[in-house]
Each structure stands twice: as structure tokens, then as C-alpha cells.
């Protein structure tokens, strides 16, 4: 794999790092974004808008805690609404970060190097947003501790370990912890670089504390690489388990539309699908505003588009199988569910989902669509919307008309549902804005390794 391809009938592949870079230039370029580049009016404008939404989040959460979950649009039969839709959506987004950092590392995909750091940050922030919803869904988060966490309490009760909801608590909290450790281990050498290059005393002290005295000793690298590889190996089954357990929340129930064995693989594929869409949504503006086109090249964007296309097709297969099983099983509740999706009161959501998740992404078959940055950005937003709609279709449309017509009902979110959701969007964007200013958005140490490899290949 060389940077240029002389064979005329093979399409030229963009390099993973633009030619001409040395150890010094990658260090300088990436660390200067954090250390010397002024924030700029655009950054302040962006974070102000995001912070306004964080205020909405605070207000929505405070009002919810004051009044109880009655302020949401939930009512029997739809006892799970926006909160669970948003929880599953955010958790799913996180999965691409771990996929990029762990699975692509094990598969020795060099193109992961310049996108893994901020994809991992995205994972952490998305899981933080996701975690808020189940906690707030309890209505009294301070009581949530005793039925989520197994600690000896004066009431003598324990969590129900035979319930998928408790599996979820363990899966999500483990996922967050392991992602944080993975991220921090990856950051360690870069924090040392920032410590050594910082010019002001406070920066030297803060980065110095975080870098913990890392000095790049060969003995340290030796153990570091082993630990990093093992973490990747551990994170790979973990990421698959997380969305599998999330899908158990549904699949273990008897509700038509939930009770199916295809849920685990179909949820994991959907998670990766939405996660890659979110990575593109973040990567495209990031490379533009910070001039990182040399490091996040067309190769990265195109590869991510291909992963989206592949996982999107798995998701489409999942939808098709749901319909096949509904008609083939002859179960009248499942058949009705399929009919209700296409013709019921929420049919518009269903058709929008098919449009966003299946029809529009077929454009990605075309090389021209995959290399059109603006189109890719729009498409990533469309897929994010589509995946949110998918969870809405699963959660709300299955619950609102299940077995007995006399127990049917409709669901309408209130302003507090919307406030909480848009609030977490603002929270996520704010964290991303802070992250690109205080930590290197691209792994500097791994970029040096990539530069070393590409210069060897060109010799």
C-alpha cells in the first residue's frame, strides 16, 4: 500500500496521512490546536449555543425531579417513551468509538489512527448523556442507588439479578469505565507531549499531573503496548455485549415487536451504524475548522461511509426479517404490529425511518457520493435522525397497541421530554467543544508511528 498508485486502471486511493509529514510536524500541528491557537469567535459562539441547551437540560431535569415523571408524556400503555428512545440512541452512538479504537486496532487498520481519539471522546460523552435517562426515569434519582447498585442497606433488599435492567446497569457502567481507561491510557503519552511543550506554568502543572511523569522509556512502552492491546481485546467483546444487553431489555419482554431473537445482532449493527454517522458528523466540521485535512483524509471519510453502508444493510436485513417473521409465524399480534407500523397513527415516523435509514444511504454505493464531503455530512445527519426514529418505532409503536384493543393508547411527548433530549444534545456538543480545546483531538503518539511506517514504505 503506497501513497501513490502508478497502475492507471486502479483508482487512486487517498493516503491515510498526507505526504511530507515528520515526527516534528505532526507534533507541532496537533499540539498547537490545544496550546497556542486562540479559541476564536466561532468557538465561543458554538459553545454558547450549546451551553444554552445545557441550561434547558438543567431546567427540564429540575422540573422533573420537583414534579415527578408525570410531567413527561408517559402513561399506560406507553410507559417507556422519549427517555428510553434517547437512552438507546445515545448508547448506540457510543459504539462506533469503541469499534474504531479497539476492533480496528486488532484488525490492524491503520486508518483508525487519526480518528480514534475523538471517536473515543464521543463514546464517553454519548454514554454520559445516555446514563442520565434511566437515572431520571426513576423520577427520584437519589433512590435509584438501592435498586441499581448492590450495596448492603438497612432495608435488607438487593437488586434483581435475573432482570435485564440490572444487566444493563452493569453493562453500561462497565462500558463507561473501560472506555475511560482506554481513552486515558491512549492519552498518556500525548499529555506528556503537552506538558513538555506548554509554555505557561498552570498548563505545565495540569498536563504534568495528568501525564503522571511519563517519559517515553522503552521499558514503559513495552508494558504500555501490551496493556493497550489487552484493553482492545477486552473492549471488543464488551462493546458487543453492551448493545446486546440493551436489546435484552426489549427482547426478554413478551410485547409484540420486542420479543424476537434477531434483536441482539440487529441492535449492535444499528449502534455501529449510528455511531459512524455521528463520527462523520463530528469529523467533517473538525477537519475543516482546524485544518486537519492532512490527517483526516478522504480515505477516512470514504472508509467510514463504507462501514455505514455495510451496517446499514444489516439493519435493513433486520427490518426485513421482522416483517418476514410477522407474516411467516402467523401470529396475529405480530402481523397486526407490522400493519400498524405502516398504516397506524405513527406511520409517518415509520416511513421516515425507512427513507432515512434504508433508501437515502444507498447513495453510498457511488464513489462520487462517498467522496463528496458536504453530501456525506448531510447523510450522516439523516442517518442519525433515522436511527433515532428506529428506536421510537421500536419503543413507542410496540407499546401503544399490544394485545387488547381496550388497553390501547397513544403517546405524545411533552415540552419537558423535548427539553431533556435537546438538553443532552447541547451537553454533548459542549463537551466536544471543550475537548478539542484542552486535549489533542488526534493521537499524536500514534500519528508519529504512522509517519514512521509510511516513510518506511516509501523507501
Amino acid at each position, binding site marked *: 500500500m503506497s501513497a501513490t498508485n502508478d497502475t492507471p486502471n486502479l483508482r487512486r486511493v487517498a493516503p491515510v496521512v498526507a505526504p511530507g509529514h515528520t515526527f516534528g510536524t505532526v507534533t507541532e500541528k496537533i499540539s498547537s490546536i490545544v496550546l497556542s491557537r486562540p479559541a476564536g469567535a466561532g468557538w465561543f459562539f458554538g459553545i454558547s449555543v450549546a451551553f444554552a441547551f445545557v441550561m434547558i437540560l438543567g431546567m427540564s431535569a429540575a422540573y422533573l425531579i420537583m414534579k415527578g415523571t408525570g410531567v413527561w408524556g408517559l402513561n399506560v400503555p406507553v410507559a417507556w417513551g422519549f427517555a428510553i428512545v434517547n437512552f438507546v440512541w445515545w448508547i448506540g452512538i457510543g459504539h462506533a468509538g469503541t469499534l474504531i479504537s479497539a476492533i480496528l486496532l486488532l484488525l490492524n487498520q491503520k486508518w483508525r489512527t487519526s480518528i480514534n481519539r475523538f471517536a473515543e471522546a464521543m463514546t464517553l460523552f454519548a454514554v454520559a448523556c445516555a446514563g442520565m435517562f434511566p437515572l431520571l426515569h426513576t423520577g427520584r434519582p437519589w433512590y435509584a442507588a438501592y435498586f441499581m447498585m448492590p450495596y448492603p442497606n438497612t432495608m435488607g433488599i438487593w437488586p434483581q439479578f435475573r432482570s435485564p435492567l440490572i444487566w444493563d446497569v452493569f453493562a453500561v457502567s462497565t462500558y463507561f469505565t*473501560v472506555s475511560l481507561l482506554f481513552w486515558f491510557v491512549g492519552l498518556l503519552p500525548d499529555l506528556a507531549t503537552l506538558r513538555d511543550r506548554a509554555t505557561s506554568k498552570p498548563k505545565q502543572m495540569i498536563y504534568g499531573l495528568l501525564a503522571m511523569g511519563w517519559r517515553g522509556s522503552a521499558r514503559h512502552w513495552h508494558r504500555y503496548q501490551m496493556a493497550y492491546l489487552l484493553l482492545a481485546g477486552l473492549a471488543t467483546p464488551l462493546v458487543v455485549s453492551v448493545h446486546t444487553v440493551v436489546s435484552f431489555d426489549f427482547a426478554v419482554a413478551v410485547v409484540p415487536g420486542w420479543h424476537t431473537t434477531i434483536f441482539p445482532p440487529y441492535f449492535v449493527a444499528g449502534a455501529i451504524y449510528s455511531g459512524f454517522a455521528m463520527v462523520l458528523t463530528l469529523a467533517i466540521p473538525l477537519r475543516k475548522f482546524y485544518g486537519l485535512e492532512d490527517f483526516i483524509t478522504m480515505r477516512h471519510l470514504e472508509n467510514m461511509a463504507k462501514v455505514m453502508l455495510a451496517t446499514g444493510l444489516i439493519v435493513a436485513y433486520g427490518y426485513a426479517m421482522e416483517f418476514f417473521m410477522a407474516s411467516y409465524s402467523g401470529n396475529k399480534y405480530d402481523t397486526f404490529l407490522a400493519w400498524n407500523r405502516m398504516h397506524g397513527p405513527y406511520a409517518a415516523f415509520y416511513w421516515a425511518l425507512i427513507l432515512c435509514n434504508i433508501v437515502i444511504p444507498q447513495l453510498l454505493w457511488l464513489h462520487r457520493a462517498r467522496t463528496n464531503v458536504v453530501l456525506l455530512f448531510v447523510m450522516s445527519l439523516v442517518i442519525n435522525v433515522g436511527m433515532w426514529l428506529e428506536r421510537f418505532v421500536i419503543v413507542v409503536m410496540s407499546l401503544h397497541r399490544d394485545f387488547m384493543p381496550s388497553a390501547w393508547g397513544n403517546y405524545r411527548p411533552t415540552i419537558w421530554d423535548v427539553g431533556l433530549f435537546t438538553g443532552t444534545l447541547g451537553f454533548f456538543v459542549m463537551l466536544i467543544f471543550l475537548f478539542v480545546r484542552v486535549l489533542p483531538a488526534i493521537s499524536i503518539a500514534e500519528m508519529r508511528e504512522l509517519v514512521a511506517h509510511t516513510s518506511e514504505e516509501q523507501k
Partner: protein
Amino acid sequence: MNEQSSKLHGVMAEFETPEQLIEAAEKTRAAGFAKLDAYAPYPVEGLAEALGLKRTWVPQLTLLGGILGGCGGFGLQYFVSVISYPLNIGGRPLNSWPAFIPVTFETTVLGAAIFAVFGMLALNKLPQPYHPVFNVARFAARASSDRFFLCIEADGEKFDGAGARKFLEGLKPASVAEVLDE
């Protein structure tokens, strides 16, 4: 050893490329300098072999963490469901182990990951707020960006500062400096 107000930690040479560093490390080891360490801004392939580093204990620690996490997770669920608060629901077994597998899996991964990271840090003796190599100005400025360093440490057998310096200068480094421990 020098017993002055500032003790000699070692003698350090600076190189411009990873290939030079590996070559220098091999030659230095062949020349019989017992204690040496190399410093690089990224994990250089082949450097561990050139320094003759043995395998690490990180995998064993990770395995231990995984076993502890898995046994702890399953043990917790067993304790809760069988010993502390047994619930007889239609005579179903109290130790319903298939339902305990997801949490056991998660705690296994958690234990292994925590042991991998904190084990690696502990074996590396990090956090370490002070180390004499940072007293070398060129090291502090460039070791974490684009230069490669090799240090012959003074506590090795038969160490002789002038001899080590002379040997390193023979390897055509970009610079040679004495590392003082203040």
C-alpha cells in the same frame, strides 16, 4: 560513583531517527554496559528486542483481574440470590446461573481492564513526579516530540562516566549529555 552535591544518574545520547536508536542500543548492549534505557516519542518496533527486554507481567495481571472480577461478580449474585435474600418462586432454583452470566461477563471484563491499566502503571512505577532524565534540557524539550535518546545508567556494574561518554560519542549521536540527579 561520584559522590558530589549532584549525583550522576547516567550519560545520555540523542539520536535523530529510530533506526539510529535501535542500532545504538544494540551496540551499547553488545559492548557490555549493563544498565541502559532508551526513550522514544512513540513505541518503536524492535527497540524492546534491541534492549533485551523480557516479557512483561501485564498479561498475567490482566488474567488475575479477570478471574477475580468474574468470581466476584458471580459470587455477589450467588450470595444475594441464595444466601442473603432467597426468594422461592414456584420452586425454581435459587442459583439460576444462566441469568447470572451477563453480569459475570461484565465484571470479568471490568476486573481485567482495571488490572491491565493499573498493573501497567504500577509496573512502570507511575505516577512518578520526578526523574533525573528531565534535568537534561534537550531531553525535556524534545523527547516527547521528535528525538530519540539512549541513556547508560550509572548504577550498572563497572560504570565509568568518561568511558561511557566516549563510547556514546563514537555512535555519532546528535548530542551527548550527562544526566545529573540533583
